[in-house]
C-alpha cells in the first residue's frame, strides 16, 4: 500500500493528494508555534488583515467552504445570517467531536492547533465576531493541552489578543472544555452547555444561533475542520480552493474509515469526486476488506447515517449525491462491515449509543430510543419474536413518521428513499437511534428473523380443578 503513516499521528495516513488541512502533520512538532511559523503559519491571517472584513467574507463565500460538522451548510453564507446591526456577535467553535466513527477534529486540534487558531481569527475578522470560544470535548485531554499551549504561545507572540499584528483587530479566543455528552455536539446544546447549563438542544425556531445564540446574541457555530480550511484559503484564494474537488463540494475533506478494512485510517480526500470504492479498495487508502472478505455493508457518514450496500460503492463522497442515494455525508466517517458481521448486533452497538446519549428533552427520543435498544437487545439475545421486529418499526415511526431514507438494493429489488426524514424531536439524536435499526431491518431482515425465538407452545391439558384435587 502506498499511503504514508506517521508514528506521531496514529491513525492518519498521508498520500499523494492535495493537503489543505493536514500539510503540517508530517512534522513531529507540528503543534508548536515554531513549526507553524516555519511553514506559512499565520500567513493566511496576514493576508486577511491586509484586506477589509467584507472582502475576506466574500472570498470565503466565493470558495463555498461547506461546513464539515455534519449538515454541510456553506460557512460564508452562515456568517451572513446574523441580523444587521446587532452586536456583540460570538464565534463558538465546535470541537465536541463524538459522532460514532468520526475523528478528524481531534487530530486537527492535537496536530495543528495553530492552524485552528488562525482559522478562528480569520472567521472573527471577516464576520465581526467579538469573542471566540473553542469548545473541546471533555475526554480529549491531549487536544486540550495542545490547544491551551498553542493559545498561550499565540497570545505571547501577538497573534491573539489586543491589536493583533499591530492592526485594530482585537480578539480573545477562550478555550472551553466539556465533560462528556454527545448531544452537546448539536449547536444549540453546545451553546446551552457554554452558558453553564445542562446540554439540551433549544427549539428552532426561534433559537437559530445566528440570530439568538450565546447569551441571546447572534452566534456563529462552526466545526473545527471548517475553521482549519480558512488559512489555506486566505493564502491561496478561492479560485485555487474551488479548483480542487467538485463544483458542489470544493476542496478536500477529512474522512475516517474504520472497521473491517485492511488499513483503517483518517485520510484527507479530494472532496466530491473520491468514490467509496476508491476509499475502501484503493491502494493509497484502505487497500480492501480485511482477510479479503466480502463487503457486507457500510455506514457512509457517521453513526447517524443510513447504511449503504456494495451497490453504492461507486458513489463519490459528495453530500447531495449521497443524500439522493438515501444517506448523508455527515461528519465524514465510514464504518465498514465485512461478511462475518452479525448485523443485528452491529445495529445494537449504535442504537445503544444514541439511547445512552439522549438528553431526555423530547419524549420520542428519551422513551423511543430506550425501547429500540431494549427490543433490539432482546432480539440479539435470541429472545425476540416477530412482534418485536414489527414493534421496532412502529417505535421508529413515532420518532420519524413517514418514509425513512434507505439505500437501493438490487438483491432486494429496493429503490432508494432519499434523505432527509421527518422527525418529531428537536435534534437528530432520536432519529439517529432509529437509523441503524431501520437500515439493518430493511436491508438484512433475514438475519433478524434467524435470531427470533422458536416458540414451541406447551399444550394446556384439560384437567379440571376437581380432578386434580381428587388425584391428590
Amino acid at each position, binding site marked *: 500500500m502506498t499511503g504514508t503513516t506517521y508514528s506521531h499521528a496514529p491513525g492518519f495516513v498521508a498520500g499523494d493528494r492535495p493537503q489543505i488541512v493536514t500539510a503540517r502533520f508530517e512534522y513531529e512538532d507540528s503543534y508548536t508555534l515554531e513549526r507553524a511559523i516555519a511553514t506559512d503559519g499565520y500567513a493566511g491571517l496576514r493576508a486577511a488583515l491586509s484586506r477589509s*472584513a467584507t472582502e475576506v467574507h466574500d472570498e470565503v463565500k466565493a470558495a463555498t467552504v461547506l461546513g464539515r460538522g455534519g449538515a454541510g451548510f456553506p460557512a460564508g453564507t452562515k456568517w451572513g445570517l446574523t441580523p444587521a446591526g446587532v452586536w456583540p456577535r460570538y464565534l463558538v467553535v465546535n470541537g465536541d467531536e463524538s459522532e460514532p466513527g468520526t475523528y478528524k477534529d481531534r487530530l486537527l486540534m492535537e496536530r495543528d492547533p495553530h492552524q485552528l487558531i488562525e482559522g478562528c481569527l480569520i472567521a472573527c475578522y471577516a464576520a465581526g465576531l467579538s469573542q471566540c470560544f473553542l469548545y473541546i470535548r471533555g*475526554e480529549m485531554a491531549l487536544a486540550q493541552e495542545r490547544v491551551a499551549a498553542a493559545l498561550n504561545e499565540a497570545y505571547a507572540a501577538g497573534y491573539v*489578543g489586543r491589536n493583533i499584528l499591530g492592526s485594530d483587530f482585537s480578539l480573545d479566543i477562550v478555550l472551553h472544555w*466539556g465533560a*462528556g455528552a454527545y448531544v452537546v455536539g448539536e449547536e444549540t446544546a453546545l451553546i446551552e452547555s457554554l452558558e*453553564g447549563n*445542562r446540554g439540551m438542544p433549544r427549539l428552532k425556531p426561534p433559537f437559530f444561533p445566528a440570530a439568538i445564540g450565546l447569551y441571546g446574541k447572534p452566534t456563529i457555530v462552526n466545526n473545527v475542520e471548517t475553521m482549519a480550511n480558512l488559512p489555506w484559503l486566505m493564502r491561496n484564494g478561492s479560485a485555487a480552493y474551488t479548483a480542487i474537488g467538485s463544483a458542489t463540494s470544493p476542496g478536500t475533506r477529512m474522512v475516517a474509515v474504520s*472497521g473491517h478494512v485492511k488499513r483503517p485510517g483518517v485520510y484527507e480526500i479530494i472532496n466530491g469526486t473520491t468514490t467509496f470504492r476508491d476509499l475502501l479498495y484503493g491502494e493509497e487508502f484502505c487497500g480492501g476488506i480485511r482477510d479479503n472478505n466480502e463487503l457486507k455493508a457500510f455506514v457512509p457518514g457517521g453513526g447517524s447515517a443510513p447504511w449503504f450496500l456494495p451497490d453504492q460503492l461507486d458513489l463519490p463522497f459528495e453530500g447531495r449525491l449521497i443524500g439522493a442515494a438515501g444517506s448523508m455525508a455527515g461528519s465524514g466517517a465510514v464504518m465498514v462491515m465485512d461478511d462475518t458481521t452479525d448485523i443485528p448486533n*452491529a445495529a445494537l452497538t449504535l442504537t445503544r449509543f444514541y439511547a445512552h446519549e439522549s*438528553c431526555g428533552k423530547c419524549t420520542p427520543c428519551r422513551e423511543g430510543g430506550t425501547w429500540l435498544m431494549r427490543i433490539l437487545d432482546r432480539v440479539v439475545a435470541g429472545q425476540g419474536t416477530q412482534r418485536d421486529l414489527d414493534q421496532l418499526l412502529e417505535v421508529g415511526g413515532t420518532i420519524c413518521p413517514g418514509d425513512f431514507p434507505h439505500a437501493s438494493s438490487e438483491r432486494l429489488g429496493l429503490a432508494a428513499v432519499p434523505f432527509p426524514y421527518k422527525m418529531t424531536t428537536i435534534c437528530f439524536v432520536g432519529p439517529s437511534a432509529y437509523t441503524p435499526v431501520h437500515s439493518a431491518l430493511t436491508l438484512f431482515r433475514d438475519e433478524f428473523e434467524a435470531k427470533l425465538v422458536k416458540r414451541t407452545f406447551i399444550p394446556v391439558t384439560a384437567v379440571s380443578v376437581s380432578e386434580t384435587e381428587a388425584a391428590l
Partner: protein
Amino acid sequence: MSRLTEDNVRVAHEIISRYPRPRSATIPLLHLAQQQDGYVTNDAIRHIGELVGATSAEVLGTATFYEMFKFEPVGKYLVNICRTMSCALMGGEELMHHAEHRLGIKAGSTTPDGMFTLEHAECQAACTEAPTLQVNYRYRFRVTPETFDALIDDLAAGRLDSEIPAHGTVARIRQHIPAERGVGAVPPEDATNAPSWMTVAEAPK
C-alpha cells in the same frame, strides 16, 4: 468534603474572568473541583455556585448531566473501554470481558484497593485504532489482552505516573491570558457597538 482551596479559587477567578457571564465557567470549575478532590463534593458544588452566582441546585443540575463528573470517590485510574460500533466490530466487547476478569470487577465498579474503576465508554474518536480505551482520558490504541495486562501492571507499579495523572486531572496545561495582551470579556449588554475593525457600515436587511 471540601471547598476549593485558596490556590484553586485564584484559578477559578481567572477562568471566570474570561467569560461575558460567570455561569459559563460552571463546567470548567467543576473540573477544577474534581481535579482537587478526585470527585465533585457537595461542598465544592456549593462553593462553585457562590463563585458563578448560581444556586447549588443549578450547579448540581448541570454537573449531573455530564458523564465525566463523579459524585463519589472512584479509583485512581478510570479505565474506559469503548463499545460503540467500530470498536465493537474489532473486539471491544471481548476486551471488556478480559478486563473484567483481569481486574476481578464488573464494568461500573472499583477494585477494593481503590486503584481501578472500570467503565464502558461510548465512541472515543479513535475509531481506526479499535479497540480503544482511555485511562484517565489518555488513549491506548489497538488494545489486546496482553497489552491490557501490561498496562494494568505498569499503572499498578507507578511506571506511568509521568504520563497519566490521577483521576480528576484532565489537561495539565491551562490557558493563561496575559493581562497586557487580553481584550477582556465584556457582558453582552455592554458591547452593543460594532467591533472597531468593522469599518464598513452594514446596510439594514
